[in-house]
């Protein structure tokens, strides 16, 4: 299968979800061309609402549609949704409204538009809210299945999706298992366990392969469900290996690295954790140049992991 952006996967999956379930509704805040809702709009105009550039109202209205029995999927850039944190807290999370939030354009991987359009703190913000489920698929197959899972799940769900195309890390027979860490590569006696999520999973896998060839066998886990987090798997792997390395296109504060650290700390395990990811604001540049600059390319991840293995 060709590489595909997970926002595109969502756009395709939500049409199918709409065919299966007449309660599915899609809402935009003037970014439908970027969040890939055009197909749904064409097919189900009576279930599509353009709310204009007014995200607070988008969020609150979706909560109302959910009270009225609908399953609204609301879409915008990750930073613009998470930026309306208090509205999500009140109208969606505290009300436990059955709203699916689609935050696209996650991370520095969006490229040229620069930091103001990059969702880099959305996991940290939304992970702190009770009732919230957070999903970040790593490729097309996983994204499509996750959208269908979320349609059937009653409760608020936040999706973190990419602008950039992602190569497949799964085969077509892959089965998305909600709440479970997805072991992509398992070493019998790993020198390093790598947890990665979203757009950087494929690069992490490649970095792990290169490290393996150089004598440092790695286990690689794809975390598609950031909340609730698979504490059990993190603890199990931390008992097998005393070096844990996390990779994410998000701030290292509050994101995947924090979730892994919390699980391991709660279990009281004496292991070292290195949280690799964004530590400052992003900037403009091509996605490839930015991944190089911020150490999220294959070589960047490999270098950070090698340095961590040395000390």
């Amino acid at each position, binding site marked *: 299968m060709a590489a595909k952006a997970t926002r595109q996967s969502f756009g395709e999956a939500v049409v199918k979800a709409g065919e299966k379930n007449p309660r599915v*509704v899609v809402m935009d805040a003037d970014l439908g061309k970027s969040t890939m809702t055009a197909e749904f709009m064409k097919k189900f105009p*009576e*279930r599509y*609402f*353009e*709310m*204009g550039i*007014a995200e*607070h*109202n988008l*969020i*609150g*209205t*979706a*909560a*109302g*549609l*959910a*009270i*009225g*029995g*609908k399953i*609204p999927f609301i879409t915008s850039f990750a930073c613009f949704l998470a930026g309306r944190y*208090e*509205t999500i*807290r*009140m*109208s969606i999370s*505290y*009300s*436990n*409204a059955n709203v699916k939030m689609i935050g696209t354009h996650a991370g520095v991987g969006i490229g040229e538009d620069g930091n103001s359009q990059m969702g880099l703190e959305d996991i940290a913000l939304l992970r702190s809210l009770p009732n919230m489920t957070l999903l970040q698929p790593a490729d097309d197959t996983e994204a499509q299945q996750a959208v269908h899972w979320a349609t059937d799940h009653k409760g608020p769900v936040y999706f973190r999706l990419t602008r950039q195309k992602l190569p497949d890390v799964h085969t077509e027979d892959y089965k998305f298992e909600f709440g479970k860490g997805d072991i992509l590569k398992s070493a019998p006696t790993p020198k390093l366990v790598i947890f990665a999520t979203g757009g950087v999973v494929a690069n992490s896998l490649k970095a792990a392969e290169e490290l393996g060839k150089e004598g440092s066998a790695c286990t690689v886990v794809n975390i598609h469900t950031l909340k609730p987090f698979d504490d059990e798997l993190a603890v199990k792997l931390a008992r097998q290996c005393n070096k844990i390395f996390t990779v994410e296109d998000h701030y290292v504060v509050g994101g995947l690295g924090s979730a892994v650290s919390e699980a391991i700390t709660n279990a009281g395990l004496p292991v070292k954790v290195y949280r690799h990811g964004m530590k400052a604001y992003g900037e403009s540049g091509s996605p490839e140049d930015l991944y190089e600059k911020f150490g999220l390319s294959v070589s960047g991840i490999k270098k950070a992991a090698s340095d961590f293995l040395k000390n």
Partner: protein
Amino acid sequence: MQQIGKPLKVQQPAALDMRDEEIKRLKEIAKELRVWIIKTISEAGSGHPGGSLSAIDILTVLYFHTMRHRPQEPEWPLRDHFILSKGHGVPALYAVLAKSGYFPMQELMTLRKVNSRLHGHPVAGALPGIEASTGSLGQGLSVAQGIAMASKMDGNLFRVFCMVGDGEMQEGQIWETLMSAPKFALDNLVVFLDYNKGQIDGHTKDIMNLEPIGDKVRAFNWDVQEIDGHDVSKILSAIDRTRSAMGKPHFIIANTVKGKGVSFMENNIGWHGVAPTKEEAARAIAEIESHLIQ
């Protein structure tokens, strides 16, 4: 404009000759619930009497006259919905819900206490009859709009009523919804502005003036009415108009008095968020009970 579903049919208002008796009944209920508002806030030791007393006449008309609802079946799919966007006025909402039979009157006395279902602001799912969590101002109107859209999609099964506060009108999100509801021609959405002219830090006109509020909302393409929010017959007439004026959402500016019914609270900003002592509550209740219903 995006018309959702089929347009609403004009509904006939209730026969006028029924009105006198009906108005008297509603006034009696509002009088009784004013007493409960004072009792519960005093017992809690904190809460918002001013904005609860200004809202109670409208809430009484909605729950005991206008809205179709089943207290024994709170999730009845055909129910009319109510969202209290000004969540701090919830002692008034709890009072009408209990009086309607959603839960026992005596439970009102647990307001704001630990393990009570009656939180300081409305919490969705905590108590039958509470549809949405509100209390962070500006959000409930959007929620009400969403419910009205869902109703339209399903063939106009029910109407949605919402109450906003005047201080709350200062929130940006309110204006986002004022802009969007006419786009969807939500004539099944009826919003009451509890215009009691006061908020925590002072008079609304000094904090951030809303005027000319009617012109502003009319310019956003709503059907706007202005009434005395304590005159039951005027509230009923305004609701009648919402059944016949089609194609636009409804905004009713209800001029109210903060602390209405208790002379020492009326128009006194100090009673926005302060509970009466036992002695003050006794005085307030005696005064409310002395009011003659005509």
